[in-house]
């Protein structure tokens, strides 16, 4: 017996994504947000008058702004509607989806518009993010959002050569996917013959984390419309159902001084609990796509083992055998993932949006070339925060 919503089901009926870019001087914040909102409304084929509630989020401090949800009303369409703001760090976009799902499932609203955005070029990301550290113990002794924690862990366990090759293989696969996605911020056209050069010559950041491994700093917005089962079926011919989601966080495990986590990660804990209560015994064969919040290639490789509850080197083999490619057994981030575009407040929502598009079959050039019925999407934030969401094509679980 799977885990089910007690009151009513919730479907995704509209999706909007801006093109992700390093600079959007041509639009201000509400104007950029509006691009995604307009797309989502048009995608759903409804009007703004059909939206009951608008929820909005991004990273605190990143643009040095306060209460953007209020003045962004010019772009969000929240005028005269119930509206509020959510911010949970890197997971913000995923948390917005959880909140929208809960708000509709509860019966509070029939349709909720969730919006995540970021304009990272307007602010100072590291200046903002270092303020999450305890002022007395950690603020003066940290490396911001950059860490080679996963590299240390993978090299310790699997040796330098194999670990470094796996990370670069992952990176090149993500770039190949990014080249298929017209919304990508970064798509270089990397190829396999560049492996050795990139492993040696990409500018080093911290430990074995190099510039090429790391995600971008992007501008962009994402909007998703959630509706009750009854409304969803009226609005959309192909609603994507939100089956379940779980949020797990633990603040003490991510010590930014490069240690690796000796304990179970929040990713593995979240995955195990979520699959258990939904009766999913073999996630690797159950899911048809996984949109992972992968801030760096090192983390991407390492976290595959956690999210799919794998043991030993099974995750490395998935990468080495290129099974995570769009044409492989378990496509991971056909969108190119977070390394291709990272407008942080939108990033985790883009994972859900991209997973939903894959189920609808209209993702565009990066559509997986076989049917997608079951999708998994993750969000990640500091210090160690996981949101994991299951989307379904059919209401038959």
């Amino acid at each position: 017996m799977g885990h089910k919503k007690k009151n009513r089901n919730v479907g995704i009926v509209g999706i909007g994504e801006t093109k992700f870019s390093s600079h959007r001087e041509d639009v201000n914040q509400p104007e950029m947000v509006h691009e995604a909102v307009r797309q989502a409304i048009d995608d759903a084929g409804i009007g703004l008058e059909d939206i009951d509630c608008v929820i909005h989020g991004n990273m605190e401090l990143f643009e040095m702004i306060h209460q953007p949800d209020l003045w962004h009303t010019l772009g969000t369409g929240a005028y005269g509607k119930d509206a509020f703001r959510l911010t949970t760090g890197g997971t913000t976009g995923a948390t917005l989806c959880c909140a929208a799902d809960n708000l509709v499932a509860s019966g509070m609203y029939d349709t909720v518009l969730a919006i995540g955005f970021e304009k990272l070029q307007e602010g100072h990301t590291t200046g903002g993010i270092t303020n999450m550290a305890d002022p007395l113990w950690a603020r003066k002794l940290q490396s911001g959002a950059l860490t080679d924690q996963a590299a240390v862990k993978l090299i310790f366990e699997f040796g330098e050569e194999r670990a470094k090759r796996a990370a670069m293989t992952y990176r090149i696969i993500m770039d190949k996917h990014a080249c298929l996605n017209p919304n990508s911020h970064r798509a270089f056209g990397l190829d396999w013959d560049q492996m050795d050069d990139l492993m040696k010559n990409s500018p080093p950041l911290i430990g074995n984390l190099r510039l090429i491994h790391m995600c971008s700093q992007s501008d962009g917005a994402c909007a998703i419309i959630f509706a009750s089962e009854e409304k969803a079926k009226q609005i959309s011919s192909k609603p994507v159902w939100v089956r379940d989601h779980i949020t797990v966080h633990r603040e003490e495990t991510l010590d930014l001084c490069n240690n690796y986590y000796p304990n179970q990660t929040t990713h593995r804990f979240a995955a195990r609990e979520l699959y258990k209560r939904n009766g999913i015994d073999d996630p690797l064969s159950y899911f048809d796509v996984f949109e992972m919040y992968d801030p760096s290639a090192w983390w991407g490789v390492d976290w595959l083992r956690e999210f799919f509850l794998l043991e030993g080197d099974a995750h490395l083999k998935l990468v080495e055998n290129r099974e995570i490619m769009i044409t492989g057994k378990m496509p991971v981030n056909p969108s190119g993932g977070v390394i291709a575009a990272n407008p942080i407040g939108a990033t985790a929502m883009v994972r859900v949006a991209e997973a939903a598009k894959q189920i609808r079959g209209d993702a565009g050039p990066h559509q997986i070339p076989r049917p997608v019925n079951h999708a998994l999407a993750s969000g990640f934030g500091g210090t160690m925060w996981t949101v994991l969401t299951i989307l379904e094509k059919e209401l038959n679980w």
Partner: protein
Amino acid sequence: MRKDFDVSDCYVQEGKLALPYSYFAGRVGSTFITTLRDQRRILGVRCNTCGKVFVPPRQTCERCMEDIRNNWVTLSNTGEVVNYTVVNYDDRHLPRKAPFILALIRPDGADTPMVHILEGIEGDKVQPGLKVKAVFSEKTTHTILDIDHFEPVA
């Protein structure tokens, strides 16, 4: 309630955040600022659905959700005070030494007011409806402060 907490030997760590930022004005905001700077004209935009003329201008009418970015209207450099307040404290972020007046001023031709500094009148003499005109600053800052302040029409 007890207020005599023992704070002996309790250390307070002083800190300072450095958070530089830019703000991308966008094409609509840029047109407003450059026209103000170069031509000393105040621009609004009209929503053709509800008929409202907005200042400051915006790309979208948030009520009708119409794209109004190209519907430019030149507003008058005169207008009226819709409401106001007197700022009586000093702080670094404030544009003038206290006391000074911040007013909502609706330029003639617009349906909405914008906030600006009102000079040339005492706070207790101001009434909503007071006719005022824009006084432009001599040196540009490429901001809304290219209007230095508003003052009563003589």
